[in-house]
């Protein structure tokens, strides 16, 4: 049994034909993850007890002749910012090194109800802040495709385990590109659904108006299946959307004929030549599939980074205020007064990137600056969202690069935070607008580094996004890891 080559459909067939049991599959996934993890550091911990218990439940359902669920027996890895009851959830932070959540995130509850098997928790940038996974307190993740390179961030571990084949699918979180960029760097599919499509209950808050949970997979159909299983209204998240969840995988027919696609001219500058060539080739492929491609403009693109880093850091500075040494496991040992305890706990507990963002967020919200920065940024956010709304009156989907360049070397950008922020340009715009967007592999550079093509659609138009990605994927040869 080779976990790395399994799909959700293949697992279902194997289980129903009694070729293997869910327990055998889970045991093999755990063994493989244990053996492979030293190469990448992608898992922070495995969850053998929970995985085996889940697998036995699936086997019992099958033995009783019951429908075992759309994710029956599928090994799923979960980013360590998503809460798992009884399983340590660190958020990649020293502050939460020993934090054991008392409840499950809704997305985890739902994927298990659908038969999915949580095999482990994946490494990530601290509190999901970063674009390279180098901000984890527990060491960086190495890209399984090129071990001297980053897997992208912040959901680097969740992308790496799927690329490596130690999980079949995984959950990540995306605030400004943290699913799409690592998916692009690791050569897998990564999906940021419409804001509110998946409940945020149990997702550790970074920037609440921008945070999303979404799937990683090795093919579009598996990503669509996982999203379908976790999406939908949840009374515990008042921003979760009540719109009905379509049967995404059933709607994939391999056809993209007649779709009108927009290519934003603002996204085609500043690309490395190889990334630009691969994106251009991808666009040609889409034309051959019968799509009509036209150039469009998203005129406020240049302002998106500034807008995002004001809003995201302002929200983060508020959300991270709770880590004060009272409730969440870590407390500085060197404090006599309450005020010192707060300050020293936070000073010792947070890593450099979290502190930088807390500082920026506190600054832009501080007296005298609120109007100049935060309010201004919220207005610019409205303009970015308006750009997309205008574009979608003329096209069904937008195609674009995910990142200006493929995976970079470990350490290459770590000392230049602004350069790291600027690299998020193509993913941040979609996050600000709250529209669904995804990365689908569109080939490798001469060095063998994967490049992702980004597809963006209007709010709740995931079906169009998946259909286009699926039709495109069928034209690509899958890169080997």
């Amino acid at each position, binding site marked *: 049994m080779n976990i790395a080559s399994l799909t959700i459909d293949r697992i279902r067939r194997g289980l129903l034909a009694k070729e293997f049991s869910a327990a055998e599959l889970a045991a093999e996934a755990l063994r493989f993850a244990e053996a492979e993890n030293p190469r990448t550091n992608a898992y922070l911990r495995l969850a053998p007890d929970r995985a085996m218990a889940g697998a036995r439940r699936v086997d019992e359902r099958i033995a009783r002749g019951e429908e075992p669920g759309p994710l029956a027996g599928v090994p799923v890895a979960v980013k360590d910012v998503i809460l798992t009851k009884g399983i340590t959830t660190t958020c990649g932070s020293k502050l939460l090194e020993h934090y054991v959540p008392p409840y499950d995130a809704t997305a985890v509850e739902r994927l298990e109800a659908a038969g999915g098997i949580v095999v482990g928790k994946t490494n990530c940038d601290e509190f999901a802040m970063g674009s390279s996974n180098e901000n984890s307190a527990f060491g960086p993740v190495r890209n399984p495709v090129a071990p001297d390179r980053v897997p992208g961030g912040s959901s680097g571990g969740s992308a790496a385990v799927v690329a490596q084949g130690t999980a079949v699918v995984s959950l990540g979180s995306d605030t400004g590109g943290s699913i799409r960029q690592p998916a692009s760097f690791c050569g897998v599919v990564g999906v940021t659904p419409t804001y509110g499509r998946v409940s945020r209950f149990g997702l550790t808050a970074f920037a609440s108006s921008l945070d999303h949970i979404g799937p990683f997979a090795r093919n579009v159909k598996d990503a669509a299946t996982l999203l379908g299983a976790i999406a939908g209204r949840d009374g515990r998240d008042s921003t979760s959307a009540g719109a009905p969840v379509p049967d995404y995988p059933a709607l994939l027919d391999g056809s993209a004929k007649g779709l009108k696609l927009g290519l934003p001219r603002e996204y085609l500058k500043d690309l490395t030549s190889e990334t630009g060539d691969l994106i251009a080739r991808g666009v040609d492929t889409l034309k051959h599939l019968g799509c009509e491609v036209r150039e469009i403009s998203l005129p406020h693109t240049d302002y998106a980074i500034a807008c995002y880093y004001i809003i995201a850091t302002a929200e983060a500075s508020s959300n991270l205020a709770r880590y004060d040494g009272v*409730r969440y496991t870590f407390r500085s040992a060197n404090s006599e007064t309450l005020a010192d305890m707060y300050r020293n706990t936070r000073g010792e507990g947070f890593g450099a990137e979290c502190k930088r963002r*807390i500082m920026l967020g506190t600054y832009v919200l501080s007296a005298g600056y609120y109007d100049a920065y935060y309010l201004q940024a919220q207005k610019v956010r409205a303009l970015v969202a308006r750009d997309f709304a205008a574009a979608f009156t003329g096209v069904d989907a937008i195609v674009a690069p995910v990142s200006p360049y493929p995976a970079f070397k470990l350490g290459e950008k770590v000392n230049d935070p*602004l350069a790291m922020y600027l690299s998020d340009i193509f993913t941040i715009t979609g996050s600000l607008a709250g529209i669904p967007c995804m990365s689908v592999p569109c080939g490798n550079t001469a060095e063998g580094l994967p490049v992702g093509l980004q597809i963006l659609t209007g709010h709740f138009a995931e079906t169009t996004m998946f259909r286009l990605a699926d039709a495109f994927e069928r034209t690509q040869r899958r890169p080997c890891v």
Partner: protein
Amino acid sequence: MKITEQEVRYVADLANLTLTDEEVARFRGDLDGILEHIGKLNELDLAGVEPMAQVLFEGAEADELRMDIPQPPLGNEAALANAPLAGAGYFKVPLVIER
């Protein structure tokens, strides 16, 4: 220069963060560069633009609140399980008021 070391220390105080002198110097430089970039927003004429605080959708479904039905609470023990210091059913912190 957009921000001074003194302002960095003031903001760290607001954020309840102890920073070392090296961190103050480093963050001053980092924030300076980022604020310089952020200044770009002043190029835009934003008169009449409504600020966007949330991604909101039209339609009744998203506006629905859940039914207010009592649920069993987490419970004192589970709520305190991650406390660095707890006792007698409370979170314990350094003494605040002298008696």
